[in-house]
């Protein structure tokens, strides 16, 4: 079984240094990069499925600046077999639509049974790239997976999709694209064996020319959306604390809520 996992390097949320630059784009130089959290959960599931199948490989697919191999190496140390990085100076500032087209074109160069992605990324939060890639490639799209159960013989895959009341059980034929959640299971720490093995794993770089994308159709100048400003949420009003006998305090709280038509 071959599983491609879309993995994005993002500013380390733990660093507290995520911020936008002057041009409204993410200032990537300002904080250390890590593999996007949700992508690690999808990767963990992919590794478990290939291990259980006893054959196959997990391939990382990343669109990112040229220094991404530093981040991808950790995903290789977790156990992914090889990596493909799409990088090109023309990609800087690309919007979601362009990103989707690039990943779809890169996927066309790979053979796979399944494609996994995290439901969203901690830097962008649009959460639309997996669906967009599925739409462009014509792959069945199963979203918000809490569990993924492929049936190699039948060439089908079932997914437990998180719903307001529990799970919806969906099925699609393979190949299919699945966006996964943290309910897939805690990602493993890389072992020393994994780290040392990652040194010699294949990590290839593709340019836009390699995947047949016109550089003028991507990047900041071709972006379909622009970040025009940023502001913190309005500060909340001071907290009102009610201290009284239980009956009296309860009465005041009920009055407070009733005044605002909350009860």
């Amino acid at each position, binding site marked *: 079984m071959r599983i491609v996992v879309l993995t994005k390097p993002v500013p380390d949320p733990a660093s507290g240094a995520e911020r936008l630059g002057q041009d409204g784009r993410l200032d990537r130089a300002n904080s250390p990069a890590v593999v996007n959290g949700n992508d690690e959960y999808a990767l963990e599931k992919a590794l478990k499925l290939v291990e259980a199948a006893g054959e196959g490989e997990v391939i990382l697919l990343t669109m990112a600046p040229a220094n991404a*191999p530093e*981040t991808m*190496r950790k995903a290789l140390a977790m156990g992914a077999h090889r990596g493909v990085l799409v990088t090109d100076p023309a990609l800087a500032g690309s919007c979601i639509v362009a990103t989707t087209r690039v990943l779809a074109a890169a996927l066309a160069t790979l053979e796979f049974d399944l494609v996994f992605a995290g439901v969203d990324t901690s830097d962008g939060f649009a959460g639309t790239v997996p669906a967009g890639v599925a739409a462009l490639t014509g792959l069945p799209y199963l979203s918000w997976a809490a569990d993924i159960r492929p049936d190699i013989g039948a060439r089908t895959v079932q997914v437990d999709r998180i719903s307001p009341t529990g799970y919806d059980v969906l099925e699609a034929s393979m190949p299919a694209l699945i966006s996964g959640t943290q309910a897939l299971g805690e990602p493993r720490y*890389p*072992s*020393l064996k994994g780290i040392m093995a990652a040194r010699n794993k*294949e990590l290839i*770089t593709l340019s836009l020319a390699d995947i047949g994308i016109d550089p003028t159709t991507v990047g900041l100048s071709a972006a379909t959306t622009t970040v025009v400003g940023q502001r913190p949420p309005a500060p909340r009003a001071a907290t009102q604390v009610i201290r009284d006998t239980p009956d009296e305090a309860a009465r005041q709280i009920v009055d407070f809520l009733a005044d605002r038509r909350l009860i």
Partner: protein
Amino acid sequence: MTDGAHDPGPYRLREEHQLLRDAVRVLADERVAPRAAEIDRTGAFPDDLRRLLADHDILALPFPEAHGGLGGELLSVCLAVEQLSRACATTGLILAVQELGSLPITLAGTEEQQARWFPRLASGEQLIAFALTEAEAGSDVAAARTTAQRDGDHYVISGSKRFISHGSVADLIVVFAATANDPATPRHERLSAFVVELPTAGFSVARIEHKMGLRGSPTAELAFDGVRVPAANRLGEEGDGFSIAMRTLDRSRPGIAAQAVGIAQGALEVATQYARDRRQFGQRVGDFQQVGAMLADMDAGTEAARQLLYKACVEIDAGAPDAARWSAMCKLVAGDNAMRVTTDAVQVLGGYGYIDEFPVERMMRDAKITQLYEGTQQIQRLVLARSLLGKAD
């Protein structure tokens, strides 16, 4: 398409080195540090931590992949020793000695010998010790009096070795013994190296030393009373022993430098935390300039020692002709720094630094050995002076 896999980037650890360092650091913080004070107090060899290192493949780092190891280069081994020693110098030495003992086999062993011994050393099932020093042959290695007499397909080893790290817990001992004593043989061609497999008749542990520091790491005096060793256990040719020992130390001294850097870093972190938490005269003691300056010097000295160590590792792995110089230099600088930094850490903590409520007094005692073993600092300076001046007439 281009292969973007390996861009080492000058003067920056590669991602896999950072991953390895961080993985060992987490293990050291969570599993090793909580045991360090008890190991020091009881003086018992931490076999649980030996198994921990084995289970996490840390002991496999120095061994080739073909024989069950991880094929780690010197830098990887030293990153691991450093992180372990930051929590517990005794535990860091488990890996450093495993590497030291196996180096003669790496450097002079045949493929068959490596296949015979490395898999169980890489798995951590067996430990190996390096027995070179004698009571009357410390810095003057070639003065060794232990002898190995040829007897058919065997050698018979007699004599004693002193200050042998892990000597009482090892399963294999690399022993350096004289195979020639005639005046016609030059001093540096008298020694040969043998792998002694234990248990074996005639071998005994004569005593365990009572040490100032590294108290959980057993340092033994070993007695060889007619120990028969198959000729197939000889490493290299007869007379190669001195050269094997010197080449081993060229590669093993960085392991001690790594231990020293780790001890210094551990002490710096404790002192920094204390200087942040402790308040006197209404302010943090670290905000007093005299204390802040000590911390600054401790940090700068430790980082300088660390960078010299990493550079030495890379040069030695690259086959630099002046490997002896790099290894002597990094051990010299890192050992002296560790002694200074741990002493200053005790000073920063004041009276609290002198009692075992805080780990810095242990770190100070542990640091001292890094100025003594695998060649005293005086020997390192001798190596460096000779590489500058050439040998005396």
